[in-house]
């Protein structure tokens, strides 16, 4: 709330303008259109449309205020998850980290759906976790599973990134041996899918009505593939005017990993947006098959970008969006330090938190599955920090669990300890790949 008030009226940037445009069109024409390059799920443009409808131009501030309140829900869910998986001390630490975690705070006053999505998604994961931990038969808390599925479906209507996580979770529930019989596990997986489906189905059917194609919630993959599985390299964590200088600062590694690209492919100009985006996905996969070497080395850079301690909060400074008090060096510099070092500490602490401190096998499996899913699904395409936000709440929980039990003799579990050291090593290498450009960027906007 404090940052929202200090930030003042931020001018919209990039997708923020598109969300406003979609919302204004929705109010004006009475139906939801698409954003030319994407078919975004409808929930966030709908919320923006309602805000503009009720409050006029003041709806932008009203929406940001709403996002701040929703962010409070996210904080509560983070603390509850830490309490469930670790202890009261971990919950307090997780709450404190969340309250100071500027990459998440930033999105409360941007017109991006991340804050609302994360609150709904984290609540869904929490309900799923407590159901899974206590499930003994098909009748153990079915309403928790129903709630988890309904919230998951609402989350999909906000952002479709978790779409394939639904089948992954169902397969896990079926395959993992618990006190549930196989029949009960199947029944529970079906209940979860059905509860997601009842929320999503009306929109899926509407998409079929309008586009004549099966589109569960939205179509954003094609554009991301166009930018990610192509000869282009962008890191959207940096303003475009800074990118040439940053590439120069990290010249040798940039050349090694994303230099000498093969010829780029251009998207087809099919009139049907779904066909156009589906074709883009196919073209991207063809590109990857034809140029496996370039694809592989450029993935390393993108994953390095994904874990780099940058954020849209820092990007806003680079864009010169923050004015007034927030731009004063006396406040800006401490915020910079917090925005860089807190994600670093969370990433370092989350690894032993997940692999050593978290003793509950159900919780460990669920959180690691979500982290791996996002790492596989999102990071290789566009490795910017915004795609890490989906796992940040769970990383905060894991890191807090580790911090709460710091000093315990966990190292006796040798296999897990070796995994932690190996993961730290990989993280260190990925940070080393990006460190020159990150330091250069921070110096530029310091």
């Amino acid at each position, binding site marked *: 709330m404090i940052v929202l008030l200090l930030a003042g009226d931020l001018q919209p940037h990039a997708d923020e*303008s598109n969300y406003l445009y979609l919302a204004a069109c929705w109010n004006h*024409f009475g139906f939801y259109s698409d954003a030319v390059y994407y078919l975004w799920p409808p929930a966030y443009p709908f919320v923006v449309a309602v805000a503009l409808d009720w409050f006029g131009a003041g709806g*932008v501030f009203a929406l940001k205020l709403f996002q701040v309140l929703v962010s409070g829900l996210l904080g509560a869910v983070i603390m509850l998850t830490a309490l469930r998986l670790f202890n009261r001390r971990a919950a307090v630490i997780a709450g404190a980290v969340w309250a100071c975690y500027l990459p998440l705070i930033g999105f409360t006053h941007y017109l991006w759906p991340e804050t609302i999505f994360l609150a709904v998604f984290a609540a869904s994961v929490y309900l799923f976790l407590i159901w899974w931990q206590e499930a003994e038969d098909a*009748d153990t808390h079915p309403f928790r599973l129903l709630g988890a599925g309904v919230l998951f479906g609402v989350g999909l209507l906000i952002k479709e990134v978790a779409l394939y996580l639904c089948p992954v979770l169902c397969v896990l529930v079926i395959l993992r041996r618990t006190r549930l019989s196989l029949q009960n596990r199947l029944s529970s997986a079906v209940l979860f899918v059905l509860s997601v489906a009842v929320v999503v189905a009306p929109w899926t059917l509407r998409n079929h009505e309008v*586009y004549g194609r099966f589109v569960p919630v939205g179509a954003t993959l094609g554009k991301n593939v166009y930018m990610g599985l192509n000869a282009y390299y962008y890191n959207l964590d940096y303003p475009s005017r800074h990118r040439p200088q940053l590439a120069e600062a990290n010249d040798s590694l940039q050349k090694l990993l994303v230099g000498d690209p093969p010829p780029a492919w251009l998207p087809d100009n099919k009139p049907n947006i779904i066909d156009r985006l589906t074709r883009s996905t196919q073209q991207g996969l063809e590109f990857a098959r034809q140029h496996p070497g370039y694809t592989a080395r450029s993935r390393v850079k993108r994953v390095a970008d994904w874990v780099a301690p940058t954020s849209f909060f820092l990007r806003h400074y680079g864009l010169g969006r923050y004015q007034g008090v927030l731009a004063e060096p006396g406040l800006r510099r401490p915020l910079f330090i917090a925005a860089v070092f807190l994600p670093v500490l969370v990433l370092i602490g989350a690894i032993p938190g997940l692999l050593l401190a978290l003793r509950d096998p159900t919780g460990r499996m669920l959180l690691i599955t979500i982290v791996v899913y996002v790492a596989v699904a999102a990071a290789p395409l566009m490795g910017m920090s915004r795609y890490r936000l989906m796992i940040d709440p769970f990383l905060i929980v894991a890191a807090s669990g580790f911090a709460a039990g710091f000093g315990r003799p966990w190292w006796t579990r040798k296999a897990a300890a070796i995994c932690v050291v190996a993961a730290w090593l990989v993280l260190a290498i990925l940070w080393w790949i990006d460190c020159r450009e990150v330091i250069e960027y921070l110096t530029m906007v310091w």
Partner: protein
Amino acid sequence: MKKKAHPKPAPPQRRSPGYWLHAALLLILAIECAVAIAGRRSRAGLERDLQSGTPAAKAYALFVLTNRDTPRPPDAQFVSDLLDSGDPLLREWTMTTNFTRLTGSTMQRTYLDSLGDSPQGLRCRFLLTRGIGQTPWMTLPELAEFLDALEE
């Protein structure tokens, strides 16, 4: 002598809450599908709306017709006809749709210039510049201006 106890008849089995939840969700899903199928607009119905519906129905019909399997040809004549239709909402929608991008923006811009600084001109300018490409970006004063123009 003790009487031999008769075995008690097994209590009738009650369906579990999980069973009823599955059934209820399936029912809701079936209703959703039925409503969607019943409400699905045929191409002929959409064409009818485009010819003689309300302004909002015309714009929606145009939106669906240009996105479905059999898109109308997004040629210059079609766009020109829509811009000359005399229906402000339809003209504004024509300015913003994807398919008009494929024909180039010269015609829309010529049309836009003819509207001058009227509220309708402001609306169309907003819709056109935001619908085509991602630059220049919208500013908050522009948004406020657009919303004011809607009220006029």
